């Protein structure tokens, strides 16, 4: 009895989880495997469209004879590259129709015209014409004729399903001169974005953890950049930073801080002189990182605030008795209490920033030295239309990501052991 109960429980569990698991498998896991497959192929954007046989039906009346009607089918192969084999054609007609002349490829049975057109090479076109006669010479319903659409079928090679593989994509990705630059840009973007958002998160969490008027309102406001749509925010920033009429540049010129506008999003380098040392700052990249910090520090803020509120007040009271200064309290009590949260946050944000696409894409489109790996996936796959290359870049991302995940879970595992 107990055994069967356990069995039904198992069965129900599988039934309940199956839809979700199947969907996640189809849309998330399967594409990752498909990515591996595509990355070893030479595929371009134009290759992925499956060639289709198409027909456009045009109805012409013959003026001398109202009982006759001419139907013209403009047949074509939709693909400019691939042939379609064994094309078959089928169209239905009203019951009073009789065919006048039958094409040798076709047969007319049960008021249905069926044809076998054989193989169509790429770019194939044909004007196929049939004349019909009605046996009762009544008026012909042209609209009705037009509404029945011919059905066409054919088989063609799917370039994605054949087994030609190549290593060309990976060679191109990994041994390209720009690859090191690409990795470095991605690393700068990820690392400084992560560190920056965590530092701002600590500052704001420490701030909101104190009592002041309007504290809950402040907490909502701090989360605005995180919950608002990225499209709106990116365009607003672009508008603020625009070199020609942007608010920031206009303000700085108005206050005579600068003389000529700075193109914060379009200039790759800016020369900066600090203490007599000249160095080049990657300006556009810095701006994009600033946006990233601005948009994602709220997450760090929330996590750290939740942790801060869980720190027992006795610790601070004891420190007050010992006469500790605010700085000492922060470095000796607060900071050790939030290190665990920070280490987890660092990994989460690192992984997510590493894969961030929208922000950079909307702000600069990857121009002026802001091309990160995810941007490269898009550019290879859709701008250069080399799907295979795009896939190869995403495989590189997945491999790097798996490395991060490995260390992340190792770290998490360690932390769990300690507790």
């Amino acid at each position, binding site marked *: 009895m107990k055994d069967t109960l*356990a069995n039904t429980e198992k069965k129900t569990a599988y039934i309940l989880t199956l839809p979700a698991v199947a969907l996640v498998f189809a849309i998330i896991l399967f594409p990752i495997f498909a990515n591996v497959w595509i990355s070893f192929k030479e595929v371009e954007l134009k290759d992925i469209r499956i060639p289709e046989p198409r027909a456009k039906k045009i109805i012409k009346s013959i003026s001398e004879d109202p009982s006759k009607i001419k139907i013209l089918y403009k047949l074509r192969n939709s693909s400019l590259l691939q042939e379609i084999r064994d094309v078959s054609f089928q169209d239905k007609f009203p019951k009073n129709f009789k065919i006048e002349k039958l094409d040798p490829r076709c047969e007319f049975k049960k008021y249905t015209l069926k044809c076998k057109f054989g193989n169509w090479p790429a770019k194939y076109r044909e004007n196929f014409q049939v004349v019909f006669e009605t046996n009762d010479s009544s008026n012909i319903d042209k609209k009705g004729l037009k509404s029945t659409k011919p059905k066409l079928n054919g088989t063609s090679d799917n370039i994605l399903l054949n087994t030609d593989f190549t290593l060309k994509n990976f060679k191109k990705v990994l041994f390209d001169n720009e690859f090191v630059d690409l990795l470095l840009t991605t690393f700068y973007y990820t690392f400084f974005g992560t560190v920056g958002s965590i530092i701002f998160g600590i500052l704001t969490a420490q701030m909101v953890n104190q009592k002041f008027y309007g504290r809950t309102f402040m907490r909502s406001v701090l989360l605005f950049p995180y919950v608002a749509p990225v499209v709106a925010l990116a365009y607003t920033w672009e*508008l603020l930073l625009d070199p020609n009429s942007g608010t920031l540049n206009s303000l700085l010129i108005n206050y005579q801080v600068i003389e000529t506008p700075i193109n914060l999003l379009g200039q790759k380098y800016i020369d900066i002189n600090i203490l007599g040392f000249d160095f080049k700052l990657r300006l556009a990249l810095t701006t994009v990182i600033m946006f990233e910090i601005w948009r994602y520090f709220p997450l760090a803020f929330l996590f750290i605030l939740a942790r801060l509120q869980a720190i027992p007040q006795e610790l601070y009271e004891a420190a007050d008795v010992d006469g500790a200064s605010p700085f000492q309290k922060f470095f000796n009590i607060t900071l050790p209490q939030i290190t665990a949260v920070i280490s987890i946050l660092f990994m989460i944000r690192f*992984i997510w920033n590493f894969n961030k696409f929208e922000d950079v894409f909307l702000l600069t489109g990857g121009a002026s030295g802001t091309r990160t790996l995810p941007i490269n996936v898009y550019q290879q796959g859709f701008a250069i239309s080399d799907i295979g290359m795009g896939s190869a870049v995403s495989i590189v991302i997945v491999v790097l990501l798996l490395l991060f995940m490995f260390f992340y879970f190792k770290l998490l595992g360690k932390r769990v052991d300690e507790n």
Partner: protein
Amino acid sequence: MKTKNLILFTLISSFFLIFIVSIWKILATLQGLNIQNFNLGIIFIFGLLISFANLRIGKKIKIFYKSIIFSLIFVVCDGYIIQKLPLWYNTGIFLILYFFVNKINKYSFADLKEQHSTQVIFFDFLTLFGILFFSFVILFPFYMMLITSFKTQIALLVNPLDFSINFGQDFKDLFKSYFVIFKSYKFGQYILTSTIVSVGTVIITLIFAIPAAYAIARLNFFGKTFMSTSILIIYMFPAIVLVIPLYTIFSQLGLRNSIEGLLIVYTATTLPVAIYMLQGYFKSIPKELEEAAILDKLSWFGIITKIIIPLSIPAISSVALYVFMIAWNEFLFSLMFLDNPNSFTLSRAIQYLSGDAETPRQYLMAGSVIVTLPVLFIFVYFEKYLVSGLTAGSVKG
């Protein structure tokens, strides 16, 4: 020791005064006032004098009169003698000074003698500074987004710093950008598409997630631990990696440019979060209720619909709000899958609009306001439910 503390206190408070007055001056400049100089030196000296005088006077004069006197002196110098500025600007300055004097009023000579007094003062002002700084940095772009949408192209070209809104003008002129994007750019349709996609995603996600979360929370089966850990791993997986294979598959299946295609992808990407959040909540529901239900011969379906769902309405609604926000804000997949303007979502439509360099930016901003408002409204209104979910990591980004 005392003089060192005194100097530090006056310096910190003066810098704070400079900061708040500067923010006010920036905002005033953006209302079209011709302010070209912050007069930082003068404000700084005033700051030093006021904070020192405040300490000196102490409690001899009532705080109310003290604040008014100091504020009036500052306003007269800043707003009338140095540069003649309108009344609303000076009222603002007056209120800022009033606030400032009230803030520094709580410190006295005796406080400055105490241990760590400079650090305490430093932290106090740092908090104040932080509140103002972050409010400004965060709200400023939103503010600019809103007021730009009410301006006209010509007005912005004439004076790129004048963002004042003339409320006296005709209602139609004020909301012109909004009328235009609804009329000529079909924004009504985009709002509808976005709403259908987001609400659809919420419904489908909940239908899939509630049973799965229940099974993971309550039932014993082979592969349960594997499933709950893989939820987290899948959640970490980046969308950009899925884009190319999904694009090719969807193209071949004819699912691109269709709402169904978006619904499938959005549901799949939000499912792991939804299951993760729901199973956490389901675990907290007492088991005894279900045991009673099993004795009553209720089926699993009955347990979920009659016990679990009514008990977890708050959790389910917070998951629903999240999924709605994720789907509403989503951009990457809508960029990849939609290239026919008839099937655009709001985000995609705004991006498409910006692709045309001729599009006036107030239209772009009006579109941005439209796409931002619902999300911010939901967020502020349901903040209490949503914040706890955010810490559970529900919004990926």
